[in-house]
């Protein structure tokens, strides 16, 4: 079953002029005609450098943004007309420190968001304990959020997104600020989710992460989808060449000798 479908989706950000004072409109075409289909339980990597449209793609699924052209459908629901129903199905793991209530403890933050996510009061406590154990934050459950480390924020962001047991989980550079061991742990969590049937979108600029964790990888460049392949194909050496782009006025012999044909 297809969980998420993009059909020729475009997203343009316009900086509008202020009446007659500024006539021109600056435009950024963040997503250019992306079409893709993702199945239930699949882990799709969105791989690309900064400004390639990874976060915009995630925001389009979460309904934080609506497409200008084309259609995004989540479990058959168009994000334009069924925003509320889509939001019930999608969890967006936002790990920014500023997205939590700093004076509340880890547990209090999750309890608050659980209520907003329609989790019944008698189930909240169990659900919070369960996600905290799952992301290994149970030991800091009583700590005020402002005292957490960056790695803990990442895990708390995932816990918050998982509190509603979403069908689709969106992760935006989840291993940023994690050490190697914590990143490995996170990758195991993602694979566990996939086994449970959760569809995961993982935006990253880390090639190793994309190919190690994902079933398929979508390569984005300046808002365009330039390749969509199984992860093992991406691991092949030739696809890494997408990243090799050198511009130079002149090249020394010494450098030329060092570059393979």
């Amino acid at each position: 079953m297809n969980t998420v479908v993009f059909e020729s989706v475009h997203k343009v950000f316009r900086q509008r002029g202020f009446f007659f004072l500024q006539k021109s409109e600056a435009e950024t075409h963040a997503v250019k005609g992306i079409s893709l289909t993702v199945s239930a339980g699949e882990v799709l990597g969105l791989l690309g450098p900064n400004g390639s449209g990874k976060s915009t793609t995630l925001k389009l699924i979460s309904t934080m943004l609506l497409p200008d052209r084309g259609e995004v459908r989540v479990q058959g629901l168009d994000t334009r007309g069924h925003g509320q129903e889509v939001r019930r199905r999608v969890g967006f793991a936002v790990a920014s420190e500023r997205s939590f209530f700093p004076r509340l403890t880890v547990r209090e933050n999750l309890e608050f968001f659980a209520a907003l996510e329609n989790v019944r009061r008698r189930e909240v406590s169990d659900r919070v304990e369960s996600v905290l154990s799952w992301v290994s934050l149970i030991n800091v459950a009583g700590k005020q959020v402002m005292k957490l480390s960056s790695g803990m924020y990442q895990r708390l962001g995932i816990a918050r997104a998982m509190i509603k047991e979403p069908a689709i989980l969106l992760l935006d550079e989840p291993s940023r600020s994690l050490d190697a061991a914590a990143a490995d742990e996170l990758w195991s969590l993602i694979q566990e989710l996939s086994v449970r049937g959760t569809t995961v979108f993982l935006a990253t600029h880390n090639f190793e992460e994309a190919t190690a964790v994902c079933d398929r990888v979508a390569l984005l460049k300046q808002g365009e989808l330039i390749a969509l392949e199984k992860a093992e194909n991406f691991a092949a050496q030739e696809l890494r060449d997408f990243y090799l782009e050198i511009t130079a006025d002149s090249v020394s012999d010494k450098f030329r000798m060092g570059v393979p044909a």
Partner: protein
Amino acid sequence: MIIDKIIAVIKKDAITALRYRNGFVISSLSQIAQLATFYYLARAVGPQFRPEGMPYFLFLLIGTGFYTFLLAGTHNFLKTIQESQQTGTLEVLLTTATPAAVLVSLGALSAFGEDLLQLAVYISAGVFLFAPALHMSVIACLLAFVFSILSAFAVGLFAAGLQISIHKGSAVLWVLGSGAWLMSGTLFPVEALPKPVQMVAYVIPFTHSLTAMRLGMLGGSLAAVARELGILAVFALILVPTGIMFFSWMVRQARQNGTLSFY
């Protein structure tokens, strides 16, 4: 489900307020200072000035106390959006399963509790000092209170929508609030204003809120307040659905333009 959400929001705000105790102490002190100001202002004006047939201090207490409560209620909607824009929680809140209009209303409702406490202090001061002069109709006062809150709720949603859209909702609310403060009969009767300004005053719902509350506290019967209550009910009927639609439309526009997290 909505009850669970109300409890969660109130709990979150209460814990946050307790952990920022200083703000609560400062606001209590400012309220005492305001009461003292009204008392000495009324003394300076003298006992011969009895607007709408009541002592001036009582007129000020009801007018300013109730007006401040309604304006604060309106401002709470704006504050809910502003704070979540500043702290960075707005985008996350708006990706939850709770509709945006419900979210902002819950935030404002929680702050209403604190304002209600302030209003209770004003009313207690009035009852304590002027008990013999009061012929209160509890039903009239309650109805005036409910209809006024509904109007404040709607105006609050307009302000919150403007905050999402142009990020300057507080400036708009300040201009409207100052205008309404001047015209709605908080400090002096509306009849003291020039005729054209009086006409503007009568299309401000808060003008009728203050009149209804004063009549309800002194008039002693529901019939005496019926006309004002009718006007307030019409305001509520028109403004509440319009406010919800306006706010929801502004949020949708922000999702379309990608400006949800802008501040």
